[in-house]
């Protein structure tokens, strides 16, 4: 199908974009467009105005400073995939990147767009939740930061106000003690996950501390599995699997019961990754 008609405006500044968003209740921001344009083509959404933010300068930078990595919202997946700073300081994202769609889509799709769109089966929202970073947003009253734990509200719903723009992600830079894990199950390489798991932890002696497990594809948002986190910190992988309290619904890919089982399978794999020494 073809998109319904809409107006298009390419903006050069955040304030210009925010003003347009405020004046058009059904406007949509166009970043990478790899989800948005598909929904336009299928007429699942029909905004009156597309605000193209790709002309706003400075939103595609990756900076590591003082233990924090700032990732601009317009950073493309392919750019993050090639980035030495991401590989060194945010190894979880480097690990997840090859699972995201396909090369032609990674050339366009943006990290900010993926987090703002908040698809419940997407990799990056879960990575952000596992990293425990902040989302930076810009609105009519200026900039603010939203912790990842408070960002994902419901199905495709985030803490962003209708006239706010996600401008960047801030995540803690990995240290020598940082451990990460990532796994997902799909029917076909590059598809959205049936179930996936992104995880971070801190090595502490022979065990793990500060474990953060973020499952995706099992609910309306990426979900922390806090009881399982505590069990992993106590060093018991099987207890962590038993403590999983996810209640995934049936969907087109699998029944809830199958997804719940697969979540346990992934947890064992990711727990093994977390226990590996960092190369």
């Amino acid at each position: 199908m073809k998109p319904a008609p809409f107006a298009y405006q390419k903006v050069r500044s955040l304030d210009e974009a925010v003003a347009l968003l405020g004046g058009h209740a059904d406007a949509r921001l166009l970043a990478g467009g790899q989800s948005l344009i598909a929904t336009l083509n299928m007429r699942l959404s029909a905004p009156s105005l597309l605000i193209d933010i790709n002309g706003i300068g400075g939103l595609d930078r990756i900076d590591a400073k003082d233990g924090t990595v700032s990732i601009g919202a317009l950073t493309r997946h392919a750019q993050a995939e090639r980035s030495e700073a991401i590989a060194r300081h945010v190894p979880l994202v480097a690990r997840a990147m090859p699972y995201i769609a396909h090369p032609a889509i990674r050339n366009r799709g943006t990290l900010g767009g993926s987090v703002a769109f908040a698809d419940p089966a997407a990799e990056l929202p879960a990575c952000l939740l596992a990293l425990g970073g902040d989302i930076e947003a810009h609105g009519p009253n200026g900039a603010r930061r939203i912790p990842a734990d408070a960002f994902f509200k419901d199905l495709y719903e985030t803490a962003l106000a209708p006239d706010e723009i996600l401008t960047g992600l801030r995540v803690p830079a990995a240290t020598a003690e940082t451990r990460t894990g990532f796994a997902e199950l799909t029917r076909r390489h590059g598809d959205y996950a049936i179930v996936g798991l992104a995880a971070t932890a801190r090595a502490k002696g022979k065990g793990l501390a500060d474990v953060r497990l973020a499952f995706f594809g099992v609910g309306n948002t990426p979900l922390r599995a806090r009881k399982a986190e505590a069990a992993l910190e106590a060093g018991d992988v099987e207890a962590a699997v038993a403590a999983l309290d996810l209640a995934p619904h049936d969907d087109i890919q699998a029944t809830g019961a199958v997804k719940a089982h697969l979540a346990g399978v992934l947890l064992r794999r990711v727990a093994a990754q977390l226990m590996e020494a960092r190369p």
Partner: protein
Amino acid sequence: MSDTSLGITLTVNGERVSERVDARKTLVDFLREDLVLTGSHVGCEHGVCGTCTVRVDGEIVRGCLMLAVQCDGATVETIEGLSDAGGVADLQAAFVERNALQCGFCTPGMIVAAEDLLKRGGVPTRAAIREHLSGNYCRCTGYQAIVDAIEAVAQARAKGR
């Protein structure tokens, strides 16, 4: 200000093009309908099948997941441009030789995606070839012959043809 149709100027296969287009028109529809470059195909129209794969500013993209208006100022290359420049002649010959196509609908996208991998140089593993083509559907061949053709070209190019 914002409008439902806009003037754009871009370079397509080395030629400068200025057209007025509807904002809602995708890049691949613009190429096919306005410029009559029908080598890029329209399959699923939502980014899954890969048959609309073209190059924008040197990088492969889905022609159905970009709007023509986004390409104002860009350099676009299609299968026609790549074919005319001759750089993919060996890939095309290898596809024919190994029956790496049957109906041919996916072939333009396959060639553009394969060239994107091969232009990096070296001989990619079969797994790397499959990974790079994972976003391109073929419903005829079962992919084996496509991977064979691309691998053979990579080896031939590595030997200096």
